[in-house]
Structure formats: structure tokens, C-alpha cells
């Protein structure tokens, strides 16, 4: 082969979830956010960006069913400069792109770090799917599963890989509970039964505090990552 | 020219170089038989040559070759007076039509022939090969009409290769008509269109100022190549629409 070796890295690009980049630096912590359609993943990502952007260097990868709609929402909300938001196209199979074939997402996170310099945190948002979608460990270091009270208060009882195994379960839109007849106490008890010691956060992005608890959890993950 | 049992063999050659007075001289201008050449009125520094079809063809078994070379600093515009019609012949086998264009650094060549019409029962293989030195300029147009009016097409294979500074810039082959590989008229390739064309423009300045891809309607696109060139690919209902699309695309390039 007649290959020139005038590349910038010492080695070829990384293959999978190696904790270090080809130049030896530690890569960004990657946190995935999954959950059913309409549960508030994108709104949670937007709130997290606003809460963390002054203290951390962060970026977002969205996995949209249709091209870039979630990315467009984040751009419109101006939660981050446009170069820090990347959309991955999923060919109508959002769960495939975060679990079975993560190559496009790995490229997106690597390109973000290549193009905008060292990052502390990358949030990877899945396309709205169903209760079975989880992130591959080859793609993210920790994952948040977002459900909402309006989707039915029996979701925690039904379980499924997202509810049961996510590193953090977020029960969103608690302000709607009285209106949709959801029993928050029952949801908490069912979640506890499914998840044992894994944490659960109840949040309303409209209420005081908003995304505070989730942001605090993310800070904790980051502290453990760089330790 | 030779007309043996295998059909007619004919070659036309043009060599262009600067004449030292701001124009372009044609020290070589040799046509034969069906490939007669005529020098027409120059336009500024550009010499103009017309390929004048002295008989119909190519027929089955014929082998035509056209060669043009523009030396450093020369400007040559090369067209044809009428459409070329591929027809079935007495001789067995396909006809061949080879075009070889060579353009030196700082030279410019326009190869703008009229349509190639693939008549029913004909079999023609066209190869157009362009070798450009770095810094050469090219405008090349090819138009294929598959069948005369309300006629099914003949078998046509047409390969267009453009090399720039020794590397391939564009290499495309179209194969259509009876006996062509399956799917040629289907939804991935021609979808029933009977007129198609390509326009290639290579200019060194595209390296600094790349042209953006652009749609020219539903069935035509202007695409920047992986180098200082663009290709317009167009399908059209008829030759008139096709020519208009290609002309408009060329005019937008300035």
C-alpha cells in the first residue's frame, strides 16, 4: 500500500468506547437519555444544557426519527452554540442507532471532540421509541431513562430494560399528575421495586428547581469519571 | 479511411497551439471520409472547428476516432454540424466511436458535439477520454437520444473518462437499449427517459471557489466533482429540453 502517514493523531482513530482519545487525553463523559416519545427527553436535555453550560464544556448528539427535528428544537432554544449540536440520522430505527449499531453515534461524538476541542460531557439523546430501548455500553458511560406521568402511572410497574436498568430514572411532568390521575406514590413504590437501589428523580421542568436534581446527578457522574 | 469488410475506419485529428499573435493556430487539421473537418470563423483567441458528417453513420462494424489536442495556451472550440446517428449496418458487430482529447496547462478545449442518436437495431460503443494537465480548462457536452421519434433505441454503451493531472476526475459509463444489463430503463437508472446528457466543466479556479451542488429541476443536477470540475447530469423528455437545461447550467457557471 502507498499510504501517506501525514495524519494528526499518533494512532488511527479509536474503535469503541475507549476512555482515552488517540492523543492520550481522556475523552468526554457520555450520558445517554432515552425514553418513550413525548416524555420530555429533549426538554430535559435543553434544561440540562442551560444548567450546566456555564460550568462545563458540553455538546449534544440527537438521534431523530425524522432527520434533525430534535436538533432543530435545541438550536431554536439556543441552549448551546450550533457547532455543539449534532444530529444522527437513524433510518426509522432509533433504537438500532443507540444499541445494535452505534457506529454513527460514535462518529458524531468523536467529531464533536475533534472539532470543538476538549469536552467534559456529551449528552446523547435517543429518538423517541418505546420502553425497550436502551443504550449500548459501547456508546455511553451512563444512561438516563425519561418517562412521564401522563404516559400512565403503571409504566414503572411494567418495567422493561429502560425502567429497570437505567442508571437514573426520571419521572417527568409531575405537575400534570393531578390532571391525568397518576398516583406519584404508586409510581415511586413500583420504581423502587423494579430498581432496588438505583436512583429515581421526580421532576417538573415547569416547577421551581426544574432540572436541578438531574443536573446534580450528572455532576456526580462527571466527578466519578474524572476521578 | 479504409472500408473493409469490417466496416469503415476513419480518423479525424486536430492539433491546436497559440499562433503567437493572440490567436490559436491549427497546425493539424485532418479529417477523412465521414469525419470531415472545417475550420470556421475564429472568436477572439479561440479557434473553431466543425466536424462535418459527410455520410451517415457510424454503422455496425465502423470504427471512428476523433483526436484533438490543445497545446499550452491554445483555445479550441470543437463542435459538429449535425447529430450523429448510430444505425444498424451490413457488417456484423458493434460500431465504435472513440474521442480522445488532450489539453495542456493553460489551454482550453470545448467539445460540444450535437446529439448522438441511437437508432433501432444499431449497436454502438462510444468512449470519450479526456486527459487534462493541471491548470487545463474544459467544457464538454454529450447528449444521447435513445431512438428516433417513436422508435425503440439501439444498444448504446457510452463511457466518459476525464483525467486531471494523471488522476481520474470523472468516470461514468451508461449502458442502455436491448441487451443492456437489466434495470437500465427502470426507476434507478433512466425511468423511461429517452434523452439524457452530461456537461463537464473543469476550471482550475474551482479548486479555490468550489461550486455548490444544485438541482436543475426534478431530473437534472449540477454536482461538484472531487476536484476542480463539475458535472451536470440531465434526463429530459426531448432533445430541446435537454439542450436548454445544459445551456442554462453552463451559463450559471459564468
Amino acid at each position, binding site marked *: *500500500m502507498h*499510504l501517506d502517514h501525514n*495524519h*494528526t493523531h499518533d494512532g488511527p*482513530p479509536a474503535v469503541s468506547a475507549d476512555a482515552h482519545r488517540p492523543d492520550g487525553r481522556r475523552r468526554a463523559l457520555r450520558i445517554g437519555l432515552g425514553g418513550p416519545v413525548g416524555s420530555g427527553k429533549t426538554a430535559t436535555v435543553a434544561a440540562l444544557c442551560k444548567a450546566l453550560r456555564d460550568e462545563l464544556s458540553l455538546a449534544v448528539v440527537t438521534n431523530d426519527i425524522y*432527520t434533525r427535528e430534535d436538533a432543530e428544537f435545541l438550536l431554536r432554544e439556543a441552549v448551546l452554540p450550533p457547532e455543539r449540536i449534532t444530529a444522527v440520522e437513524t433510518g426509522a430505527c432509533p433504537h438500532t442507532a443507540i444499541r445494535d449499531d452505534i457506529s*454513527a453515534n460514535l462518529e458524531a461524538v468523536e467529531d464533536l471532540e475533534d472539532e470543538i476541542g476538549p469536552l467534559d460531557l456529551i449528552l446523547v439523546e435517543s429518538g423517541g421509541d418505546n420502553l425497550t430501548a436502551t443504550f449500548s455500553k459501547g456508546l455511553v458511560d451512563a444512561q438516563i431513562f425519561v418517562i412521564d406521568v401522563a404516559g400512565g402511572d403503571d409504566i414503572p410497574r411494567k418495567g422493561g430494560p429502560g425502567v429497570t436498568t437505567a442508571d437514573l430514572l426520571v419521572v417527568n411532568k409531575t405537575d400534570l399528575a393531578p390532571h391525568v390521575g397518576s398516583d406519584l406514590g404508586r409510581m415511586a413504590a413500583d420504581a423502587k421495586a423494579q430498581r432496588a437501589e438505583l436512583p429515581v428523580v421526580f421532576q417538573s421542568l415547569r416547577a421551581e428547581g426544574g432540572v436541578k436534581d438531574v443536573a446534580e446527578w450528572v455532576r456526580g457522574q462527571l466527578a466519578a469519571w474524572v476521578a | 479511411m479504409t472500408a473493409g469488410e469490417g466496416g469503415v475506419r476513419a480518423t479525424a485529428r486536430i492539433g491546436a497551439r497559440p499562433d503567437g499573435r493572440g490567436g490559436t493556430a491549427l497546425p493539424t487539421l485532418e479529417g477523412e471520409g465521414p469525419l470531415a473537418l472545417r475550420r470556421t470563423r475564429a472568436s477572439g483567441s479561440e479557434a473553431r472547428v466543425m466536424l462535418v458528417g459527410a455520410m451517415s453513420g457510424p454503422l455496425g462494424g465502423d470504427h471512428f476516432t476523433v483526436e484533438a489536442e490543445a497545446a499550452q495556451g491554445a483555445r479550441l472550440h470543437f463542435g459538429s454540424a449535425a447529430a450523429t446517428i448510430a444505425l444498424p449496418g451490413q457488417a456484423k458487430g458493434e460500431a465504435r466511436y472513440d474521442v480522445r482529447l488532450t489539453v495542456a496547462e493553460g489551454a482550453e478545449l470545448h467539445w460540444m458535439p450535437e446529439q448522438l442518436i441511437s437508432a433501432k437495431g444499431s449497436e454502438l460503443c462510444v468512449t470519450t477520454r479526456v486527459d487534462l494537465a493541471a491548470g487545463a480548462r474544459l467544457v464538454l457536452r454529450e447528449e444521447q437520444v435513445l431512438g428516433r421519434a417513436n422508435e425503440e433505441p439501439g444498444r448504446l454503451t457510452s463511457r466518459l473518462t476525464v483525467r486531471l493531472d494523471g488522476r*481520474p476526475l470523472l468516470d461514468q459509463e451508461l449502458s442502455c437499449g436491448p441487451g443492456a444489463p437489466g434495470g437500465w430503463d427502470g426507476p*434507478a437508472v433512466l425511468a423511461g427517459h429517452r434523452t439524457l446528457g452530461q456537461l463537464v466543466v473543469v476550471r482550475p479556479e474551482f479548486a479555490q471557489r468550489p461550486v455548490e451542488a444544485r438541482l436543475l429541476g426534478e431530473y437534472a*443536477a449540477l454536482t461538484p466533482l472531487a476536484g476542480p470540475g463539475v458535472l451536470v447530469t440531465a434526463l429530459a423528455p426531448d432533445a430541446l429540453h435537454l439542450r436548454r437545461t445544459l445551456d442554462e447550467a453552463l451559463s450559471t457557471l459564468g
Partner: protein
Amino acid sequence: MSRAALLVLADGRFPAGGHAHSGGAEAAVKAGRVSGAGSLEEFCRGRLHTAGLVAASLAAGAVLGLDPVELDGAADARTPSPALRTAARRLGRQLMRAARATWPSAELDALAREFPKGAHQPVVLGLAARAAGLGAEDAAYCAVYESVSGPASATVRLLSLDPFDATGVLARLAPDLDRVAHQAVEAARCALVNGVDALPAASAPLLEISAEVHAAWPVRLFAS
């Protein structure tokens, strides 16, 4: 060589990014040119004999030891649509990642270094096949099959086409797949003697034009 390695490489679940691409089917469906099993078959046949043949000959050439950088240049020249070149490099980069993890190889590492944003997918496919101990014919078969299986599975999602009908289309194309794979290997062997320019350059004008139409859509399901 291991025949099982061919199954691993050719498996639609091999994690190399193909699921997000329709091979031009999304644009053809939207334009109404593909509307059922019959038109899907004609679409696939046309794609097979053009883009499929070119991809298979590039892949076979890479297995036979043709210079991958030269092959990548040949692929560029055979792909006038920038949208298709981008898709091919993206898929090449994704396949590269999967292949390096699966069959570590110094040749793959070197190509990854040369093209950090991706070489054309068929070139990577050829080197991946080589790294897996497979031959030129195996790589050609992978390429020709991908050239039709991608549009077929995308059309199942786009038209809610009966999956048995889509699979029937693939089965009916099998004799053509055999022919094109064979033709691609012959062409690659010929290129060993006559140079990379001798590889096929079969083109499909509508695939190129529609790829640009598709890339300009603000909303779409597939990346290409």
C-alpha cells in the same frame, strides 16, 4: 478461509451503519418510481448492474491487493454526486470501525489513518474481507448483496411493503447477483494487469440526481 467469516461480514446486523441508508430507495419511493414489489425489483436490478457492479469491483480489487488509495480515487471519479460520496465515506468510516474491532489488521489501521473521515465503503469492505481471510469473490458477493438488500429493507419500512415480498425480490435477483459478482471479480483481475482505470464505471443517472434531491430535503427518514 473461513466460510463463516463471510456470514459475519455479510450479516445485515453487522454494526456498520447500513440501517440508516436506503440506497436511493427513499427518494425513488417519494417520487413514486418505487411503489411495490415489481418496481422495487427493477430499481434493485438497475442499482445492482451499476452502483453494485462498481462497488463489487472496487471491493474485489482491494482484496486482490490493488492500492486502496488509488481505488478510493477511482470511487470518487465514479460518484459524481457529492451526497453519494459523503454517504459512501460515512459508511466506509463506520465499516472501518466495525472491521477493525472484529478483524484487527495493520492494513485497516493504515487506511483508517489515511482517511480519518472515511474511505469509500467498498474499498474498506475489500480490506475488511482481506483482514477476515476472505477472497475477492466473497467481497464482491458482499457488495452486490448490499447494493440490493439495503433498498429492499428500506422499502419495507417506507412502504410497509410485505417483508415476504421484499425477500422474494432478493431471491429473484440471485442469478443477477451471481453474474455481477463474477463480472466484478473478472474486472478486478483485469485491473491488476491494466490498472485501476480498467474497473467498471457503470452509472445510474437517476441514482445520482435523486441523491441530490434527497440530500436537499429538510425532513427524511434515511441518511441517503
